[in-house]
């Protein structure tokens, strides 16, 4: 199978005052298209930073990342944004819906950015699929946490991404709602054949993926293939 994400000798440092803090060091791995991939590790291990780098939200200090066949370090910020718009979907722990837009408008945005004329119709179908057909015109503040995350799921799949990055998707939800959201996430992913990369603390959720990448102190501890997946 083709590699959709290829990370080689990645290093990321931040300067904290006069000191340099290495957050990720010598990270190499790859992900095949259609795979599900979990990144786990204790707080401060660099999971979220790795996710941000892989999705082109930030730049590496050294090493390379190839996303959908494109070396990210050759792109400028706007080119990376366009790549994300075409190929990438996102799910965040705190949903990150635009508070001034309705549920429907939130789902429409990625499609509208692509110039899709049928954005509204496609978004309504997606919202129907996540069980929010009666919530099109509600603002995020009028929705529960679970509902907000479902809107975020619909938005993430709206541009039919090749790869989906999920950062602690259940972190802000209660157990029951979290389970439902995860179930919906995997269903939609399977249906769309999207590559899924999840950053999580939740080992149960991690085990639902075909691969688990374990990080500690900014280094890879293990890159395992799970039995369950």
């Amino acid at each position, binding site marked *: 199978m083709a590699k959709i994400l290829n990370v080689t000798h990645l290093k990321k440092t931040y300067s904290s005052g006069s000191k340099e803090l290495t957050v990720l060091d010598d990270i190499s791995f790859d992900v095949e298209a259609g795979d599900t991939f979990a990144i786990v590790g204790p707080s401060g291990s660099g999971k*979220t*930073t790795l996710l941000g780098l892989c999705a082109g939200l*930030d730049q590496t200090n050294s090493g390379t990342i190839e996303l959908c066949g494109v070396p990210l370090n050759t792109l400028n910020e*706007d080119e990376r944004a*366009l*790549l994300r718009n075409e190929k990438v979907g996102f799910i965040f722990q705190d949903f990150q819906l635009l508070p*001034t837009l309705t549920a429907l408008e939130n789902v429409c*945005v990625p499609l509208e950015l*692509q110039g899709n004329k049928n954005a509204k119709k496609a978004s309504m179908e997606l919202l129907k699929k996540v069980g929010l057909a009666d919530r099109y015109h509600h603002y995020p503040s009028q929705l529960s946490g679970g509902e907000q995350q479902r809107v975020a799921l619909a938005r993430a799949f709206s541009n039919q991404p090749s790869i989906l990055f999920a950062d602690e998707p259940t972190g802000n939800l209660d157990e029951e709602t979290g389970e439902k959201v995860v179930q919906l996430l995997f269903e939609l992913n399977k249906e769309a054949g999207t590559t899924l990369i999840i950053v999580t603390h939740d080992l149960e959720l991690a085990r639902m993926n075909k691969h688990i990448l374990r990080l500690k102190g900014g280094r890879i501890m293990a890159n395992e293939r799970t039995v369950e997946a």
Partner: protein
Amino acid sequence: MNHTSRTYSKADAQWLFKMAWRDGKASGKRLVLFMASIILGIAAVVSIQSFSNNLKENITIQSKALMGADFVIDSEQLPNEKVQRIIDSLGGQNAREVNFVSMVAFPNSGATKFMQVRGIEGGYPFYGTLMTKPISAGKKYQRNNGALVDGTVLLQYNVKVGDSIKIGNSVFPILGTLLSVPGSTGIGASFAPSVLIPFHSVEGTGLLQKGSRIDYNYYFVAKPEQDLELLNETVDPILDAERADMDTHTETSERLGRRYENVGRFLNLVAFIALLLGCVGVASSVHIYIKEKLRAVAVLKCIGATRKQTFLIYLIQIAGMGLLGGLIGTVAGLVLQQLFPLILQGLLPFQVELSISFQAILMGLTLGLFMSVLFALSPLLSTWYVSPLQVLRIDEQGSFASKKARLWVLAAIVLFTFLFAFWLLQNWQRAFVFVVGILITFAVLAGFANLFMKGIKKYFPSSWGFTARQSLLNLFRPNNQTTVLVLAIGVGMFLISTLYFTKDFLLAKANLENNEQSPNIILFDIQTEQKEAVVNSILLDELPVISTIPIVTMRVHSIKGKLANAIRLDTTSTINQWIINHEFRITYRDSLISSENSVEGEWPSVAIAGEPIPISLSDNVARDAQVKLGDHMVFNVQGVIMETVVRHIRTVDWGRVQLNFSILFPKGVLEKAPQFHVVTTHAPDEATSATMQRELVHKFPNVSILDLRQILSLIEDILNKISWVINFMAFFSILTGIMVLIGSVRTSKYQRIKESVLLRTIGARSKQILRITALEYLYLGLLGSGIGLLLAVLGSQMLAYFVFEIPFTPSWVPFLVILPGITFLVLLIGLGNSISVLRSPPLEVLRKEKS
């Protein structure tokens, strides 16, 4: 698809507008407050601009009506042969007038009044209307040998149509009330209101004698094909040589237009300050607004929006707000404009027909758009630099806008302000001074505010009670707008107080010392043979004669050997023309008076027979005549040529209400020259003054009497009118400040609610929270208006010292009335806007605010 081949988003401009609208719709209330800041400024600028344009148009349209004719030839004496020939060659005048000021008496009431007597012959005015009551009186007064008397005077002295008026030796029946007459300006008419009588009856009054300043006007109606400009260019120089002058209606209206244009420009600047304040408010509000939007911007970038797109979404929002604010402000300005004729009543010499000025509308819309975008640019730049990483809870360093970009924005703001000020003032230097002045004022106010805040932090009053300390700390809360509020309140206070102080010391300068040694009544036009009788009459009334001043009239014959006519014809001469055209009224004395100070030379200077007579000149005459000590000037003293030499130059404080002279002769030279006299006295009260005036007017009809107290009250009235207009504009700054204040209270509402909830949770009572809020606004109001007042005192001190050269003692009104008033206003508005937060249960408020 090759991702790198596409470097632009497929979302079009329509999408950007859609996003701006969607987001703006949900942030509506906050955007309305941004708009309010700019609406008032635009309303102020548009109303003034539109009214100024209307005024200019009216002056042009009404130029003939303002003069009452197409052109006029005027002279201070009966036309000589040459002037008469010119008048005849022009087909003879269509109407003529002789006018002078004199005391008139109303025999029925026994009252007397200093008025302008206008003797008219012919159908003047030919344009505009002579408004009288009854209407027919304007047509009958010449035929029936009657008088038309100013309406205010009739009302003041309880005189009615049908009563009589005594002018000099003649008594005229009052045929009508004079409501308006072309060319009579509001201010001039208040000093000496008009009375119209037939021209042929003036001689009989016996008032056309030497000493009185008499003007003869010859009014003409031009033929349709006549080129007035050409006529003026040809005839005026010839008339000038004969001490006459020609004025066309266009020339007069242009002069008048320029005068009012200056007033308009000044008011425009005051309005522009209000707009600038509003813009500072916009910048501050947008800063907080955008700060709250940065997370959404990061999300948008995360899901594929470019930097340009996110920047444009909010730029469109702000531009839309500015345009809408400009539109509402423009409409408000046009409505406000309707008030101006009422506000300026008595200051304008004509009725202003109001119309919509398209230039003002265009300006309002453009200003709204440009100013809001310009001032919002700096905070808007943050959207460009925000990193999408923020959505992952990673605070990336360097996501702030670059310093260079902010400097460019600041430079653009200063440049735009300068260009707009230049457009208003039409003068580079003044525009520069204005911009520098604004920058300094704003910087000083902001600097003071910051200094004060730092001072509080450093010397925090830890011993104060909980509420007082907490409210002081509130001034430092995150997203606080303390500096902006202090700036807005301070500028408003500064403007209003400076105007108050200036008016105050202008009045003080003009005011009289109320003691028996200081004259408050001046009697002039006293003939030499009347002098003794007048003095005796005053003494009989048991009033003091403080001084008798002889006055001799003369004209310049030559300066430094060059004849006046030669100077007049010499186009290269830089000597001011008024010097050679003016009839000087001079006196002779061997001492200086309190309003005079020596600059060069010595006075008195002794006249030596056979040598040129030493004279003293006021510095402005010396400057305009371009003479210095030792230079020779020759005067024509009613036919007698006198050679003089400049031996003394002095400054004269013309602002003092007393008799001042530009030229002084020494004693022992002019005693035998034809002269008239001025006598000054002091009347302790108005009743004594009125009795004395009645007696004198009865005995000596040609003698005019000026009661300085009346003049002072007129000056005060005019200054009040002017300061009312300026205060009206300055109030816009205060109103803008209030809008910024409301905006700030609303913007920080959520923060305040959180504080309030927290305080309640830890046991604070509603009363305590109310006190904390009230004290916070009290500090803000006091700080803003206090700094503004302090600056006003400093500014006025400088004005008094450098410009008016008088000592300045600030009056108590700004301290005791304006400062507490503005502070109270701030307190009221602050509390009014916070009351819903203070009254509702904490959780309910939080839920409401979150949704």
